């Protein structure tokens, strides 16, 4: 019984870890650069979940002040993650611009082909 309730109460963290590890797996295992960047953004998004989960109070409400409510979730992680999302899109866009340039120079976005054509030169 206590094991089951422990699982429910930590369920968020387990899913967060699954998302994070899937992102890591894609980044290492995939040779395709666009898929690598999708993996990187999966990793990033799982960190958002990791920050937002402890901020929640069951029975609380969103941190917009009103006389009708007394319990609010923690606003600080929300502000931090807002910043992280916007920085995330900036870095992913820069990565995609680099991928576009690589495609123009090498004619491929597969890492293995780029390495082998570098070897030929």
């Amino acid at each position, binding site marked *: 019984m206590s094991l089951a309730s422990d699982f429910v109460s930590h369920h968020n963290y387990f899913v967060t870890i699954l998302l994070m590890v*899937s992102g890591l*797996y894609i980044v290492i295992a995939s*040779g*395709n650069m666009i898929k690598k960047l999708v993996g990187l953004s999966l990793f990033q998004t799982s960190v958002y979940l990791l920050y937002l989960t402890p901020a*929640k109070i069951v029975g609380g409400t969103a*941190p917009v002040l009103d006389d009708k409510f007394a319990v609010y979730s923690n*606003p600080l992680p929300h502000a931090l993650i807002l910043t992280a*999302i916007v920085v995330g899109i900036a870095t992913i866009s820069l990565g995609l611009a680099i991928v*576009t340039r690589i495609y123009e120079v090498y004619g491929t976005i597969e890492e293995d082909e780029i390495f082998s054509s570098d070897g030929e030169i």
Partner: protein
Amino acid sequence: MEAYILMALLALLAAITIAIVFQRSLFAVVILAGIYSFLMATVMIVLDAVDVAMTEASVGAGISTVVFLATLHLTRAREYPRPRSVMLPLFVSSVVAAVLVWGTFELPRFGAAETPIHQHIAPHYLKEAKRETGVPNVVTAVLADYRSFDTLGETTVIFTGGIGILVLLRGRRRKRGEDKDAVDPGVRDA
């Protein structure tokens, strides 16, 4: 009740992540990533992070999907079957997952109000934000007032990223311009 809604949404999120790992068509991967971001925004609403959910839905599911699709248009839309071994990445991921799961055992229960994170500076923000800044939305007050230097740093990062993208993609336009110049004399000769 909230916990069970959350469990269902997170199960969907996990299913989509597994689909992204095994999908070969990059177009499908990008669309699945868009669905993933939108589900993540729904999860954020359940976690009371409404401002973050709004940003994730517009930036993560909107802008980022468009940017990925534009890159697919400029490059190639299919991933090759991989010749490399999956053993090493599988091993690294499993070890990282095991260590992280071990780390979660000491974390407080989901939704508890007496955890350290809720004792530090958050009560001050919630109590004083309206008097000190005049903004009822505490997240906005923190973002634009208490921690506005963070936001300045964020803006600097976006500015740098934008400059980087401009410099990288300006080379293309110049090259295309040179191509046009190369064709033009031929046209004139004809």
